[in-house]
C-alpha cells in the first residue's frame, strides 16, 4: 500500500500551515512503509485538533473523550493484541486531563505508539494555556500571564520508567515518519512528543523558532544511557530530535498468560462451564 491509500477521503479542516498535516503524512507514510493493512490498525484519538486525525486515516478509529485515549488503547490492545494501535493526543489531552493515564500506561508498557501533538497551547478551544505553555504567556485563560511552571513531559515519562521516549517535529516529516516506524516496531509503549507549531494561536513556537533550535541526534548518541537522555531532555537552547531513550522491557500483553495462545476476542462471549465454581458454594 502507498501512503495515499490511507487517506480516508475526508478533507482536513486544520488551519492552513498546521503541523497536523505533516503528522498526518508521517503516520500514513509509516503505515505504508511497514506494509500494515488499515483493517489491522486502530487509531485512537482524544479531543482537540489532534483528535481530528481520526477522520483522515483509512483505518479503524475510536474518538474518545478528552484525555482518555490511553485507557481506550489499553482495552483495545489487551482484547486484540494483534492490532496495531496508534494513539493521537494533544498536550492538553495527554498532559492535562490525561496525565494520570499517561504515567500508568508507561508503567504497563502497553504495546502502542503514542503521538502527542505538542503545540504548547489549546488550539481548538481558541488559545488557552496548556500544561506545556511557558511561564508568563498571556492567553485567554491566563490574561495576567501563566504562573505555573511548564511540564516537561519527556522528563515525566523518563522518570515514570518509559522505555521508548522520542521527540519529533512536524517540520521534519521524513524524520518523524521514521520515528513513528520505530515506535510501531517497538515492542512496548512508544512515546513520541511531536513539536508542532500552532499557526493560529501559538505565535511563540513558530516554525522559525523550532528551525533555529532543533538538531537531530546522530549515531554517536547512546540512547540506552539514562543520564544522557535526561541531559537531552533538559537542554535549554537547543532541542534534540530523535529517539532520546530506548530500552527493551517486557511488553504488557505478553505478561498475561490468558493471552498466550490467542487474542481475547476469540474466547469471549461463549457460554462457559462454571460447575466447578458452583460446587464451592455448596
Amino acid at each position: 500500500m502507498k501512503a495515499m491509500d490511507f487517506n480516508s477521503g475526508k478533507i482536513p479542516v486544520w488551519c492552513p500551515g498546521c503541523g497536523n498535516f505533516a503528522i498526518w503524512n508521517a503516520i500514513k507514510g509509516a503505515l505504508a512503509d511497514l506494509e500494515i493493512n488499515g483493517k489491522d490498525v486502530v487509531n485512537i484519538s482524544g479531543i482537540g485538533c489532534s483528535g481530528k486525525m481520526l477522520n483522515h486515516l483509512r483505518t479503524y478509529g475510536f474518538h474518545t473523550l478528552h484525555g482518555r485515549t490511553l485507557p481506550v488503547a489499553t482495552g483495545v490492545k489487551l482484547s486484540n493484541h494483534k492490532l496495531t494501535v496508534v494513539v493521537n493526543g494533544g498536550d492538553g489531552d495527554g498532559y492535562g486531563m490525561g496525565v494520570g493515564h499517561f504515567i500508568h500506561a508507561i508503567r504497563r508498557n502497553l504495546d502502542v505508539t503514542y503521538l502527542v501533538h505538542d503545540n504548547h497551547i489549546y488550539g481548538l478551544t481558541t488559545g488557552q494555556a496548556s500544561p506545556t505553555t511557558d511561564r508568563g504567556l498571556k492567553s485567554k485563560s491566563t490574561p495576567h500571564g501563566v504562573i505555573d511552571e511548564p511540564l516537561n513531559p519527556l522528563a515525566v515519562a523518563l522518570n515514570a520508567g518509559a522505555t521508548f521516549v522520542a521527540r519529533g517535529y512536524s517540520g521534519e516529516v521524513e524524520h518523524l515518519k521514521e520515528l513513528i516506524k520505530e515506535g510501531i516496531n517497538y515492542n512496548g509503549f512508544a512515546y513520541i512528543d511531536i513539536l508542532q507549531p500552532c499557526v493560529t494561536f501559538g505565535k511563540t513556537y513558530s516554525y522559525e523558532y523550532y528551525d533555529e533550535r532543533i538538531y537531530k541526534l546522530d549515531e554517536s548518541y547512546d540512547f540506552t544511557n539514562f543520564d544522557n537522555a535526561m541531559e537531552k531532555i533538559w537542554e535549554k537552547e537547543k532541542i534534540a530530535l530523535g529517539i532520546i531513550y530506548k530500552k527493551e522491557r517486557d511488553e504488557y500483553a505478553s505478561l498475561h498468560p490468558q493471552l498466550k495462545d490467542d487474542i481475547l476476542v476469540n474466547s469471549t462471549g461463549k457460554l462457559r462451564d462454571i460447575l466447578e465454581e458452583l460446587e464451592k458454594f455448596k
Partner: protein
Amino acid sequence: MSVITWKIGGPAGFGIMSAGPMFAMALKRSGYSVHGYPEYPSIIRGGYNNYHVTFSDKPVFSVYNRCDILVALDKVVFDSETITKNMIVIADFDNIKGTEDLECKKVNIPFKKILKDNELPDIVKNSIALGVSAKILGIDEEILFTLFKENYPAKVLDMNISAAKIGMEFCLDEMKFKVPKGNSNFKDNLLMTGNEAIALGAVKAGLGFYSTYPMTPASSILHYLAKLEEKYGIIVKHTEDEISGIIMAIGASYAGVRAMTGTSGGGLSLMTEGVGLAAITETPLVIALSQRPGPATGMPTWTEQADLKFVLNISQDEFVKIVLTPGDLNELFYMTFEAFNLADRYQVPVFVLTDKFLSESHFCEAIFSDNGLKIDRGFIFEGNSEAPMEFFPRYKEVENGIPMKSNPGTPGGLYKAPGNEHDEFGFVATDSRTRIKNQDRRFKKEEFIKKELPLPRLYGAKEAEITFVCWGSTKQPLMEALKHTDKFNFFHFSAVNPIDWEKVKELLKDKNLVAIETNYTGQLASVIAEKTGIVIKDKYLKYDGRPFFVEEIIEFVKRGN
C-alpha cells in the same frame, strides 16, 4: 416454623468475617436454609464487626433484628448490642466488667484462660467460639472441621481445630439450644453473596474484560473475578481510577470483547462521562452498581438504595440505557447473564443495580442451571475480504434502530467510533438532519427493549390490605416478612428502565400502595409518579444504612398504616 438467629461480634481483626460465613456454611451443610448479614465499619482494626446468621428448616431470606444466640468475643459487643432476657450470650464473662447484672442466659467460656492454658494465640478465639456454637446447636463437628480445612492454610489448621474442640468440651448438655432438625432440602442450594452471583453470571456469559477501581461494596466482584481470571481466560484490571476503569472496558468492548465494570455511587460519579461515551458510540457495556449511603464517601460499608435516579438520568443529554434491579441471587445471576445479551443486542449501557445488603450478605436460595441460557452477540459484520479497506456503515440501522457492529481487524469493516455525533460511517457530523436521524434511531431501540424486560412481579396473596412496592434488595426482607403475616403483598421491580409503564399502571391501580425503599425520598415512587401518574402517598422509607429488618416490616403492617 422456627427461625433461629445467631450472631458473632467483636472488634475488626478478630476474624468475625471469616468465622461468620463459615458458620453459615456449616449450618447450610447441616440441612438448613441460611441468610448471613455482615456489619462492619470502614477500619482494619477495632470498631465493631458482627455477622448475623438467620437459619431455619424452611427457606429464609433476610435478617431479623432479634438475636437468639450471641457470641461476644469482646467487651465492645456489650456496648453495641441490646441484650435481652431470652438471649443466649456466649462470652468470657469473668473478664468483662459490667455484665454481672445482665438477665440473659450466660454461657461463660473463659476465652482468656483457655488461650493461656493451651498456649494458643488470640486469633483462634473465633474458632473456640465456633466450637461452642456448633456444640450448642448440635452441628456435627466433622462439618465444621471440613470447613476449617477448606478455609485455613495447613499451618494454622490444627491449631484452629484444637481450639474448636476445647470450646466444644466446655459445653454442658443444659446449654444446648433446641433447633429443628436439618433436612436435605437445601443440599444443592448455593450459599453465596450477591457480588459472587453477579461475577458468576458474567463469567457464564463469556465475560472477557473487567476493569475498575476498588470501591466498597462492589470490590468483591473485582476480587472474585481476579481470582478466576487465569482459569477462565478473562482480563481483570484494577485500574488507576474509575475513569480509566470504564474507558478501558469500553475499549475492550469496541474491540469485540464482552466487557463489564463495577463500582459504587462515588465511582459511578467518575464514570459518568464514560457512560455517555458508551452510549453515543453504541459500545455494549455492562455496569454493576452496588449502592451505599451518602454522596461523596458517605458510609462506605453500609447499605442504601438511593442511586436509582442518578442512574436513570446519568450523563448529559438523553439516551437509552437499561436499568436492571434484581432482588435475589437468582435474579442477579440470570440478569447479569442477560445484561450482556441486552448490551450486545441493543448496543447500549446496561446497569445491574445492587446494594451493600444484597452484594455482601450471604443468601442460599440459588440454584443456577444452564437451562435456557443462550448467548446473543447481536449483529456482527462478518467482513468482506474482497474490499478490505472499505468503510462500513457501522451506524446504519439494520433492525429496530440497531446498527451492525464491526470489530477492528475485520476486512471491509472500517469505521470510526466517535464521542461526537456522527454519520453512518462514524465521521463527525453536526448537520441537523443527521442529528435528528441518529437520535430517532437510537431511541427506537427503547420500544423493543421494553418488550424484553420483566414487569414488576406480585409476591404474596393476590389481594391484601397493603401492597408494598419495592425494587432491588428490599424483596428479601419482604419475602421473609410474608412468612409472618398475610396482611400485605408486594410488587417487586426487577427492572425499571425501559419497561412498559402502561402495563405497570394497570398492575398498580386500585391497590393500597406503600412504597418501601431504603432512601430518603422514595425514588422508585417518584419514577412511578412520573411514568404512570400514580402518586404513592404512603411511603415506608429507611435511610440509616441498615436494610429493613423483618420485625420492622411486620410492625409497620400491624400498625395498619
